[in-house]
């Protein structure tokens, strides 16, 4: 049977295996039966207290907390659209998202959303209960309804609201689970943030397959991560390449102790160095190591498995049906094998478009394909080779950072005439990239980089703060004023 939504599938699993563990958090176990009861309670709460109806937006602080999961699926059951956001979001970005989505309720974010009257704490959802015996027919969302709006960083620094339908998120979970081979016996530990597509996607996948998800705050405490893997007989986990660099720095090769336990590992969100791919393959010879390429707009478009597709380990893998990937030129003509062009994706995981931005939605599509903005080619065997990401985004430990956003904060300092930011390899070799700022002083002004740092402190999330600075006489630009960042990288 094909389910129209993840929440519908969860209720189906709860019917079949009510006592199976859905979530483990802080050593507490939540069964599928209890999960559905909490989801229904959250739905009733949203409807009774806030008169939530179909299409209303709910901003949800994506804390790694079962309350988030109850509220997330409870909102979906109301037909509402969830806008999950980073609990550490800055004020300006929050304000932008708030104005753009006009939410009926905000869950969490007590510091930043204090002026809003319909602000509730996420812990409320822990204590709500619903008597499942009173349940009659549950009205599940339709597949074409919008499930989530995920705000991603655009090239201009302005956030874009990617609309994902229930069909999109259900198809993404189905496709990934089929590739990895997930089933109800899997126990996964989630240390990635759930405010980003990857982490939230993993949560949906595990609950869609009837498995168990263990919520762990972050990768910070590797000793605890390993202890939890051992204690709970964890069979899989997901990481971004910088998570692996961190685990390696903190624990050397100790992950190999779980070589006979870990059934799968999913990696994504940023490129991984070849030596790390090979090292992981050596350390975990029996683990299915899957790396995906995708975007919020087109989740998990291609996959590669390191062991079985070793000869193609430096590609981003293949698209598997029903996803189709082609290479197009600027005018939308599909190019032959081995030609370089823009990677374009079509299929049931591709987003409906951008929230309240029909122009950008139209611009991002060509003949039914989503134009990723990334550059690459497809070889004779169907493997896709990513050459570059057309966008200038900086990837700090898996978090996408727009240089324009940082520049706009720096340029507000009156002594600075011009500024341009780029990504440079992290000198410590841990985060992939870090931010470097090139600065042009106003004439006759004298100040230090520390002064600049002080001025921008608190105005940017900490990972967006430049770690390297350089004075420069002039920022290189094209004739129409566009910053030539590639020249600064040389």
């Amino acid at each position, binding site marked *: 049977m094909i389910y129209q939504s993840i929440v519908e599938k969860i209720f189906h699993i709860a019917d079949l295996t009510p006592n199976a563990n859905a979530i483990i958090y802080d050593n507490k176990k939540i069964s599928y039966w209890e999960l559905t009861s909490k989801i229904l309670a959250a739905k009733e709460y949203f409807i009774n207290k806030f008169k939530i109806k179909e299409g209303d937006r709910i901003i949800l602080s994506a804390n790694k907390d079962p309350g988030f999961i109850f509220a997330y699926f409870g909102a979906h059951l109301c037909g509402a659209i969830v806008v999950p956001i980073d609990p*550490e979001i800055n004020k300006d970005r929050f304000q932008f998202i708030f104005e753009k989505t006009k939410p009926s309720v905000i869950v969490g974010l007590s510091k930043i959303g204090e002026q809003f009257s319909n602000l509730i704490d996420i812990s409320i959802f822990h204590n709500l209960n619903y008597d499942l015996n009173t349940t009659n027919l549950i009205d599940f969302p339709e597949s074409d309804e919008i499930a989530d709006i995920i705000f991603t960083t655009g090239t201009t620094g302005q956030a874009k609201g990617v609309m994902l339908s229930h069909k999109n998120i259900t198809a993404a979970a189905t496709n990934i689970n089929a590739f990895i081979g997930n089933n109800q016996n899997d126990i996964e530990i989630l240390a990635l943030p759930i405010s980003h597509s990857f982490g939230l996607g993993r949560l949906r996948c595990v609950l869609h397959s009837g498995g168990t998800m263990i919520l762990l705050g972050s990768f910070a*405490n590797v000793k605890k991560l390993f202890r939890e893997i051992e204690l709970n007989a964890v069979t899989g986990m997901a990481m971004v390449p910088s998570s692996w660099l961190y685990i390696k720095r*903190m624990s*050397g090769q100790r992950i190999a102790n779980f070589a006979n336990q870990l059934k799968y590992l999913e990696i994504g969100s940023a490129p991984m160095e070849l030596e790390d791919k090979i090292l992981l393959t050596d350390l975990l010879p029996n683990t299915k190591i899957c790396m995906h390429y995708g975007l919020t707009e087109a989740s998990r478009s291609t996959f590669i498995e390191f062991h079985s597709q070793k000869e193609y380990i430096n590609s981003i893998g293949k698209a598997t049906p029903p996803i189709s990937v082609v290479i197009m030129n600027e005018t939308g003509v599909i190019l032959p094998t081995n030609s370089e062009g823009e990677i374009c994706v079509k299929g049931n995981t591709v987003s409906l478009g951008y929230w309240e931005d029909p122009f950008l939605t139209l611009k991002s599509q060509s003949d039914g394909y989503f134009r990723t903005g990334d550059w690459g080619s497809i070889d004779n065997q169907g493997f896709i080779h990513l050459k570059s990401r057309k966008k200038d985004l900086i990837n*700090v430990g898996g978090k996408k950072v727009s240089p324009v956003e940082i520049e706009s904060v720096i340029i507000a300092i009156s002594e600075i005439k011009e500024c341009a930011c780029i990504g440079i390899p992290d000198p*410590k070799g841990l985060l992939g990239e870090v931010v470097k700022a090139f600065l042009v002083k106003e004439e006759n002004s004298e100040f230090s980089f520390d002064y600049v740092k002080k001025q921008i402190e608190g105005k940017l999330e*900490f990972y967006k703060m430049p770690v390297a600075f350089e004075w420069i006489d002039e920022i290189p630009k094209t004739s129409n004023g566009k910053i030539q960042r590639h020249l600064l990288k040389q």
Partner: protein
Amino acid sequence: MDCEKDVINIIAKVLEVSPELINEETAIGDIQEWDSLRHLIIISELEKEFQISFEPEEIMDLEDVSDIVAAINERKGVI
């Protein structure tokens, strides 16, 4: 000389939280802000402040503030 107060202040500064939220039993990752990115910064700030360099094996064994304090004291020859 006990460096607990200094350690707590450094951690609080990196995490941008009040030092009162942190005590010797606070474990790495207990506070939402204490993620892997910030933990790396904390390690590097501690190494700078106390002019030491942690070995990978030592880092793996640090689990809470008291472990960090003990590791620094050991390095500095304080029992």
